[in-house]
């Protein structure tokens, strides 16, 4: 448990993806089986056991700690699990009688533990572990590691151990169970690659390149098909049969994270389709009365710990398919797009599934007519769903389906982003190469306040500028600091002072967590307006006008 605890500890402070990768690979390289396998399982969400509630942890600490000292400590630390991890006083010094538990001990005991065992087990482990170990145990047992590692990233770290591509691990992943001994044996060259026995595997997704409009001259419109680019979430459905002939269906994110459990309604509906096996690529949307709902509405279905019947009824999940990559034991990825498209249309028609429909092709004869469709999707066939279109996709008629983002076959031509002129309010230092630069910026727009106009923060951006621009903004921040809180500087902002950024963003949602009531999607700095006076920046009203209508 100690090694694993130290890994989580280091991961929690490591902001960079590559840094996290290195820490995990190092851990897998220096940790024996089966410990590292259980660590991999906990990082990929592959463990299931009865989770402890915060109330149980409060109860336990109440038995050990003076309530006044606990209250003072909690007040100082601010996090319940961390406070308990730090002030837990073992009955005997750590390691004096009981050795600290191994991660495998913990996982195995939890797997078979009943509700009444949990308290006793937890007390024993807390007594035997040190501060970091207790912190990690409490994270593990309350079910939220929150160290910024996706399952895909953890698998990428394991792949690095064997010097293989992560997709090579993905392909065998679902046939394996913790503690993944055959996987490690293969990656360390001690055994053959485990056979890909998964009947419903993830197939690495094909991605589109952003279209540079200058490239149109070189592209022949007759060689391309166009589709709407829906403002939803990319989803891959993979269906097969298990050993007993039963249906096995999995939903995957673009990066191969399994999301089946989050969308049981969609999985059930698609699972009923009469086909031996199939794999579809499409967009996850929420439909009501056959109309596509806004991304903000779709978000209500995302990142939920539990999926209630009410949630499913209020936000029914739907797949709008645009590709078929496997059907009835046949891998279709090597077929040209138009042939796959024909197979897809036939498949959707025969499936007669109310949660599945076809993403239509957009008719166009030349680039100007496609530009017109992109500018007004509703008039060009998207009808009432026009608001859910965020651009068009261009796919070469002869394009085969390949993993990754190849140059040439697929393009995304997004609707022009929204723009707003906002004033820099706060700046925060970055990490690593940017640790001596103020590189994360909070910006605001004007609104009417009690004492006249005031700036209200509407978002945060940390890219969209060159290194030279960063150096110049950094100097501006340092020379115009009026206050500071830890690593955050308050930058002079007001009617007659401040730096204006032109912020580009993809959309706007209502938010109760932000003072301004709005939250931007994908904001970045489009231009730095050294020339523009702060008082000429935009007002909150111009943002509010962009908000989707409130939905019931």
């Amino acid at each position, binding site marked *: 448990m100690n090694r694993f605890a*130290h890994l989580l500890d*280091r991961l*929690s*402070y*490591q*902001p960079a993806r590559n*840094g996290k990768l*290195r*820490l995990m690979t*190092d851990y897998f390289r220096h940790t024996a089986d089966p410990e590292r396998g259980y660590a991999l399982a906990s990082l990929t969400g592959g463990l299931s056991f009865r989770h402890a509630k915060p109330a149980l942890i409060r109860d336990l600490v109440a038995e050990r*700690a*003076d309530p*006044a*000292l*606990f209250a*003072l*400590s909690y007040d*100082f*630390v*601010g*996090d319940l699990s*961390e*406070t308990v991890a*730090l*002030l837990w*006083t073992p009955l005997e010094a750590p390691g004096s009688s009981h050795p600290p538990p191994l991660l495998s001990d913990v996982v195995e005991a939890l797997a078979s533990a009943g509700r009444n065992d949990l308290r006793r087990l937890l007390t024993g482990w807390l007594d035997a572990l*040190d*501060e970091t170990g207790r912190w990690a145990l409490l994270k593990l047992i309350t079910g939220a590691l929150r160290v910024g590692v996706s399952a895909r990233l953890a698998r990428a770290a394991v792949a690095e151990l064997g010097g293989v591509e992560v997709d090579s691990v993905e392909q065998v992943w679902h046939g394996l169970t913790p503690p993944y001994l055959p996987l490690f044996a293969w990656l360390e060259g001690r055994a053959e690659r485990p056979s890909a026995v998964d009947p419903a595997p993830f197939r690495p997704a094909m991605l589109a390149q952003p279209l540079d409009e200058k490239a149109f001259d070189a592209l022949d419109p007759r060689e391309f098909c166009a589709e709407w680019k829906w403002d939803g979430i990319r989803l891959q459905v993979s269906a097969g049969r298990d050993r007993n002939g039963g249906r096995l269906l999995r939903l995957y994110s673009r990066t191969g994270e399994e999301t089946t459990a989050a969308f049981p309604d969609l999985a059930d509906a698609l699972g009923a389709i009469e086909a031996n096996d199939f794999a579809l690529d499409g967009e996850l949307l929420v439909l009501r009365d056959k109309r596509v709902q806004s991304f903000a509405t779709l978000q209500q279905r995302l990142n939920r710990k539990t999926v209630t019947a009410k949630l499913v009824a209020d936000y029914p999940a739907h797949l709008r398919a645009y590709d078929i990559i496997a059907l009835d034991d046949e891998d279709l990825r090597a077929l040209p797009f138009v042939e796959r498209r024909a197979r897809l249309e036939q498949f959707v028609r025969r499936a007669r599934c109310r949660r599945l429909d076809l993403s239509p092709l957009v008719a166009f004869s030349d680039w100007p007519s496609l530009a017109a469709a992109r500018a007004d999707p509703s008039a060009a066939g998207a009808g009432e769903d026009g608001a859910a279109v965020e651009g068009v996709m261009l796919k070469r008629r002869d394009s085969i389906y390949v993993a990754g983002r190849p140059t040439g076959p697929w393009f995304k031509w997004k609707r022009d982003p929204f723009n707003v002129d906002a004033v820099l309010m706060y700046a925060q*230092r970055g*990490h*690593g*190469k940017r*640790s*001596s630069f103020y590189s994360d910026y909070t910006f605001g727009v004007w609104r009417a306040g009690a004492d006249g106009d005031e700036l209200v923060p509407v978002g945060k951006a940390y890219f969209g500028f060159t290194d030279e621009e960063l150096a110049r903004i950094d100097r501006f921040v340092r020379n115009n600091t009026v206050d*500071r809180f*830890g*690593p955050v500087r308050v930058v002079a902002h007001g009617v007659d002072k401040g730096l204006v950024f032109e912020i580009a963003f993809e959309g706007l949602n209502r938010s109760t967590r932000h003072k301004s009531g709005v939250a931007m999607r994908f904001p970045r700095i489009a231009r730095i307006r050294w020339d523009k006076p702060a008082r000429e920046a935009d007002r909150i009203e111009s943002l509010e006008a962009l908000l989707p209508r409130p939905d019931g």
Partner: protein
Amino acid sequence: MADTSAASAVLTTTPAGLYCPAGDFHIDPTRGAARALVTHGHSDHARAGSGKVLATDATLAIMRARLGPDFAGATQAVRYGETVAIGDARATFFPAGHVLGSAQILIEAHGRRVVVSGDYKRAPDPTCAPFEPIRCDAFVSEATFGLPVFRHPPAADEVAKLLTSLRVFPERTHVVGAYSLGKAQRLLALLLEAGWDRPVYVHGAMESMIALYRAHGVSMIETRHVTAADKPRLAGEIVICPPSAASDLWLRKMPDPLVAFASGWMRVRARARQRGVELPLVVSDHADWPELCATVKETGCAELWVTHGAEEALVHWAQTQGLAARPLHMIGFGDEDERETVDAETQA
């Protein structure tokens, strides 16, 4: 608590800090005093402008180096264990284990024994003499880390964390923020013990104290001054600098700096994150909670005064142990790790 209090019989609090009427001297006065007994060289305890300063030889050397040769009208060096009669009081200096030269001071007057701890720790430290518990009627303690959440791990384990990180990220400059008096030298001594086989690069502001420690016979790893020309070549090296420099312009041109910070505050995650620290090292020169409680007990005192820090918790605990305890809420004392940052940032 006037008549029954041993501490009150010997010491009073004045605007300049703790004062002993029987000997007419202050301890660690926050402003110049006629006669000052100084526990150690950190700037919140050792200030310029007193008429006469009594302290250990090392503390006087540190004051001279940091405050200039005229920091006091006169000085008197006191050895550990040596008793000095001052007026109707007697003062004896004992090691406090905090930094080089640090002392706790036993004051005997009116038949009472009061120990003023200054800052102290119980964990082993190769750079200074270890703390000795002294029996007394009243104990005047610090409580910088006076909450039960503070249990400092062995410092060698934290240094091992640093070395592991160097193994995993050999292309990054490991920049360790450490207070320039005490913490930096302790890290240098620990790196020597850990067998790090390369010189450690240090910020110019640290050099005089490192030289002073070496002159007092403290063994530390070889150090090199960081020059502008060195900076691009520091991949995989350890750089030690004041906490404020560890997150600012000074880092520029170093290869992909990985910022570490050696401080007891690094125990609390929010503190580490707030500073943008990637590698928190829990290394403290102050007593942690178990050390504070154990020390209070070992002194056998019936009465506890808490000068600064998380006074409330330690006072509460002492009262549950049947001791008379009170917080002094002394202004102007603090933890050097925190203060140096504030000072430096204000100047920047």
